[in-house]
């Protein structure tokens, strides 16, 4: 349905193929969260890998930082409709976390947990084989608290609410269990290219 009198701003761009439907290109880095920004000190930070209720391995800040560091520069897509190109992150690939724990993924589903009680679900296969990391640096510097520091999940190919801020652990679950936003009307998977924003989007 054409809106009377609306032409749109869209600057002429060669980037259209990089911008998923319904998204616009953002130069800044907006902040979104469900509550106040948790201030998590590195000394108080830890990361736990769990299978159901059972902890598999836990790392403190120093131990986690001793894991192999990888780089990922990716376009990110927020469900509130902004897309940001070429965001440069460094962190530990989920593959390297699993290797350090000495395990193969035990289930097909994962819940990411945050310090403030936030959680989000991601299929395990969307986290492995180089697809996702626990990011520790943005633009070469520690991630600020607003953006989820000291450590956040980075799953760049899904809407950005899946990239949980203030990450405190990953938990393998038997079933695909909806997390915080998924219980509040957001899509269970969240592929920006299929515009899976809200529950029951295709």
């Amino acid at each position, binding site marked *: 349905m054409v809106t009377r009198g609306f032409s749109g701003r869209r600057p002429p761009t060669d980037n259209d193929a990089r911008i998923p439907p319904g998204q616009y290109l953002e130069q800044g880095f907006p902040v979104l969260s469900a509550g106040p920004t948790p201030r998590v000190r590195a000394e108080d930070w830890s990361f736990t890998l769990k299978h159901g209720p059972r902890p598999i391995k836990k790392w403190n800040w120093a131990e986690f930082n001793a894991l192999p560091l990888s780089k990922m520069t990716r376009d990110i897509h927020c469900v509130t409709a902004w897309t940001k190109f070429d965001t440069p992150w460094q962190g530990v690939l989920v593959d390297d976390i699993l290797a350090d724990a000495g395990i193969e993924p035990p289930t097909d589903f994962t819940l990411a947990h945050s310090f403030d009680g936030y959680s989000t679900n991601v299929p395990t296969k969307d986290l492995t084989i180089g697809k996702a990391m626990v990011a520790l640096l943005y633009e070469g510097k520690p991630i600020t608290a607003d953006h989820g520091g000291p450590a956040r999940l980075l799953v760049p190919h899904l809407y950005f609410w899946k990239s949980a801020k203030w990450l405190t652990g990953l938990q393998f679950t038997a079933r695909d269990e909806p997390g*915080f936003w998924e219980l509040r009307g957001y899509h269970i998977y969240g592929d920006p290219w299929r515009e899976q924003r809200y529950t029951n989007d295709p």
Partner: protein
Amino acid sequence: MSEAAQSPWQTAIISRVEKRTPRVTSFFFQPSRPFAYLAGQHVDVRLTAPDGYQARRSYSIASAPEAGETIELAIEKLEDGEVSPFFHDVAAVGDEVELRGPLGGHFVWSSSDEGPLLLVGGGSGVVPLMSMVRHRAARKSAVAVALVFSARIWDEVIFRDELIGLDDRKDGFNLVLTLTREPARRPSDYARRVDVAMMVQAIGRLPAPPRLAFVCGSNAFVSAAAQALIDAGIAPEVIRTERYGV
């Protein structure tokens, strides 16, 4: 809320336009398929250009769930924006836009959720809080509420007369205005940015500590206000935030 979020795009007709402040205008929409919603929820609006280009933005619902089928959105004009100038400069009564809603299941309050309630809004961030305040009034709820509303100047206080009218009833709703670029007009108001001391005093107007606090506005406002609440002794778990970006 997941059932509600299944709602697909639909057309809605602008049935009324009302200027609220020099920069904020309310648009009243009549959806082709009216829907129920909770105070604090938002809708997504989608505009389509003749060549198929689309822009979509979220706008909080300002009306109370009890207000009937018409949905009020209060839109602030950003001069260099894409969608808000369209509404201010082009849209008129009788026009159709696409709309989807209701959306959002976290930043919501229902009179049955009880209180006391602390609401903190900056600029157009007052919109979802207004829906909560109107919902409380429509339900004749006795829940104690303090609304701290920060605006630049007196004439930019959205819904000013309605809010002052509700405050004058002395029925448990307390309005605290703070103007950042003008002196205060009422004895109970402030003339500075929100800070810890202001939050402590606003909480002091409630009979008990708030069971829930809702903070809405720009990124910077929400960060500052939520931190002030925490410094005023409010537990992070009771604070819900909604950020409008920029």
